[in-house]
């Protein structure tokens, strides 16, 4: 068997100089230290993205993005198509796990200051992907056209509509009209399967090329250690194989979740029915949703909701631009202030998510 593989390898190598890539990867080293575990979350997120692409394409084979058929087609996938239940449940579970792992990945990068020069573009592309992910979650949530999704989308788009001047056009753009209707479904479906994945792929490519070119970021203290103590491991095959092991475990976890906790479909959305009690957005939007509730209806002359949205917008922007205002880290100095901000954000999100969950 070996000679054949070797022959194929040589055939390809001759044409595209594969050996260079292998040599490059073999020379690449991953720093080993007490925070090494966080390096894996990027890889897991990548793996989950691949799963999403595959299961998403599979779902597209049977899904119908129209008001009359969306719910029925998912019901059809779940009951009539072999392993349809598995594909759909995995897609739904992965979506949630994906957001979770990217969150962990983002915060680990933040606390490690891995965004500092020269990795500003990597950070920016990552942040943009994170926002796109939230977009994926929001658009995908409506696609089964069930009661909960319908009203969550209604509320979600309404909040956007509160933004002054641009809010109303954005709301109409997202809904494809004044109300959440079949037009909204078609629109969000288009975004979910074409627009967002297209942009996401470009960003992901940039992100991965940059990671490969620049290598893994090393923590501050790692550089100060004597050379002998700077432990590393080769990216290929050691790190890749470890990544692979973790991916396998994650895949198994997904299968277990899909079998034992199949993703519910609920009741078909009825635009004329009154909203069921306890409408909540997906968990990753919960902390924002909950915060908006605590802001008084009027602050001076500004609408409370508008103020909240503007604040979150500003906070998001500041967070995204951290490499540009965190001078100390770029100069290679410790910056406790940024750590405190990060800790505050983590605590805030956890606290408000719990509050939203309990409410």
């Amino acid at each position, binding site marked *: 068997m070996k000679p054949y593989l070797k022959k194929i390898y040589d055939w390809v190598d001759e044409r595209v100089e594969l050996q260079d890539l292998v040599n490059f990867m073999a020379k690449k080293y991953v720093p080993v230290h007490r925070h090494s575990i966080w390096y894996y979350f990027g890889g897991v997120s990548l793996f989950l993205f691949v799963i999403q692409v595959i299961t998403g394409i599979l779902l597209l084979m049977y899904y119908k993005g129209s008001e009359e058929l969306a719910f029925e087609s998912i*019901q059809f996938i*779940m*009951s009539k198509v072999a392993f349809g*239940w*598995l594909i759909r449940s995995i897609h739904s579970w992965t979506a949630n796990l994906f957001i979770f792992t990217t969150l962990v990945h983002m915060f680990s990068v933040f606390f490690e200051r891995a965004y500092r020069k020269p990795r500003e573009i990597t950070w920016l592309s990552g942040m943009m992907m994170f926002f796109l992910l939230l977009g994926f979650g929001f658009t995908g949530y409506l696609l089964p056209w069930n009661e909960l999704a319908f009203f969550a989308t209604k509320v979600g788009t309404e909040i956007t509509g509160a933004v002054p001047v641009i809010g109303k056009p954005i709301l109409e753009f997202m809904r494809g009209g004044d109300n959440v209707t079949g037009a909204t479904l078609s629109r969000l479906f288009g975004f979910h399967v074409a627009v967002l994945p297209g942009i996401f792929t470009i960003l992901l490519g940039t992100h991965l090329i940059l990671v490969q070119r620049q290598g893994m970021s090393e923590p501050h203290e790692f550089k100060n250690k004597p050379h002998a103590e700077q432990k590393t*491991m*080769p990216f290929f*095959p*050691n790190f890749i*194989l*470890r990544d*692979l*092991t973790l991916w*396998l*475990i994650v*895949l*198994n976890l997904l*299968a*277990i979740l899909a*079998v034992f906790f*199949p993703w519910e*479909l609920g009741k078909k959305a009825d635009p004329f029915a009154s909203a069921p009690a306890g409408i909540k957005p997906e968990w990753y939007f919960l902390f924002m949703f909950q915060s908006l509730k605590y802001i008084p209806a009027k602050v001076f002359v500004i609408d409370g909701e508008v103020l909240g949205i503007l604040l979150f917008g500003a906070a998001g922007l500041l967070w995204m631009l951290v490499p540009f205002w965190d001078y100390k880290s770029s100069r290679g100095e410790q910056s406790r202030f940024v750590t405190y901000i990060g800790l505050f954000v983590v605590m805030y999100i956890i606290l408000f998510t719990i509050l939203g969950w309990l409410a």
Partner: protein
Amino acid sequence: MKRKLFYLGLFCTVIFLPAQSLLADDQCISCHTNTVGDKQSELFKHDIHFKKGISCADCHGGNSKLEDMDAAMNPKEGFIGVPKGDNISKTCAHCHADPEKMKKYGSSLPTNQWESLQSSVHGKLSTTGKEHITQCVTCHDSHGIVSVKNSASPVFPLNVVKTCTKCHANASFMQTYNPAMPVDQLDKYRTSVHGVRNRNGDPKPAQCASCHGSHDIRGIKDVKSSVYATNIPTTCSKCHSNAEYMKQYKIPTDQYEKFARSEHGKALLQKHDVGAPACNDCHGNHGATPPGVESVSKVCGTCHALNADLFSSSPHKKAFDERKLPECETCHSNHEIVAATDKLLGVGSEAVCSRCHQTNQNVKGYAVAKTMRSLIDSLEFMEQNAEMLVNESEQRGMEISEAKFKLRDVRQARLQSRTMVHSFNEQKFHDVVGKGMTAASIVQGEAQASIDEYYFRRKGLGVATLIITIFTISLYLYIRRLERKQNKKVI
């Protein structure tokens, strides 16, 4: 002799009646009888009111003590002449609505008649719009009123029919108020047992007022009406459940109790389903008569048409007619019809077929009954089994809405087969049951497949987990080996 009697009467009235109503004092009567000689004053002398000492002036006003006609019938003396419109009834109500006054005359009559009349269907405004349709005098007459117990009274049981039909049999009159209302009640009534006995002079059987009430008559669609669908059984039972009252007619008095226990009674009295039959739906209302033996199936068939049709074209029709067996009733009873279950079918102890069909007589029917029962039992068993499997699959969180939908067909076939029993034709029955059985086995198959699928998912997961575990462990070992080798190289 006459004179003697007159004085005796005068003596009696002096003794028993209040002084102001003395005949001798009442100038109205004396003048109207002696000088004018009109019919009213003549009639009034037989009137119960006259006997109780009520004078003309009590209703017509004026001063009955004055001899001078102009002075006595002067508006200044309060003379009103003949009361018009609602004033007629108000004149009566002046005393009849006042318990104190009625007590004074030693009357135990109720005092709510005027009130009841106003809220009744007859209390609506007449075509002139100025008065109620009916006044007291419409039914009771004005002069010469006697007790309701007196056979001369227009409201005496034997006379009520005539009194009511004065208007109600007059098509052109009824048209002015309710063109849709029939005017043939009397004709129908005379065909009924009630009507025949009434004509023959028996005051006890029901006449108009017995069912419709007297002063408080309401339309049949008025829920307060005594003849509103849900009230009819109670109305009929006033007499028909009274054993003492019904004694001389020698008919049972337990119809109401039986009806109340029956499926029809439950639907009507407990579920207030006004479509369910009350007494009148089978016996008729004005022409109330028990349906004859040969017409039972026609009467039941007004609602249970399919069963009746099937029965009429079945071999049982001839057999029942020959033996003078009432059709539906023979198996289902009459007043106490309970929900027919499958137990009625077959040859078991509770089955009705075996009353005629035995192993030694009417043998063919015995075999058919046995087959039919076993077929319907199997269908029911299959339906239960399919339903159980569907539920089980649903509990396991499987999507089975399609099979659940199909389950309806099984149920439908079973219900249809129960109707089809009345054809007493094995082949027809078999066809319907067969349809149900086919549907049931499809549902069973689908439900079983989805339960199998449930276990398959778990097993599949087990296999995949095993593979991944082995993969993971061997990968781990491989990495360890690889790194040990690398370390060796470095060293």
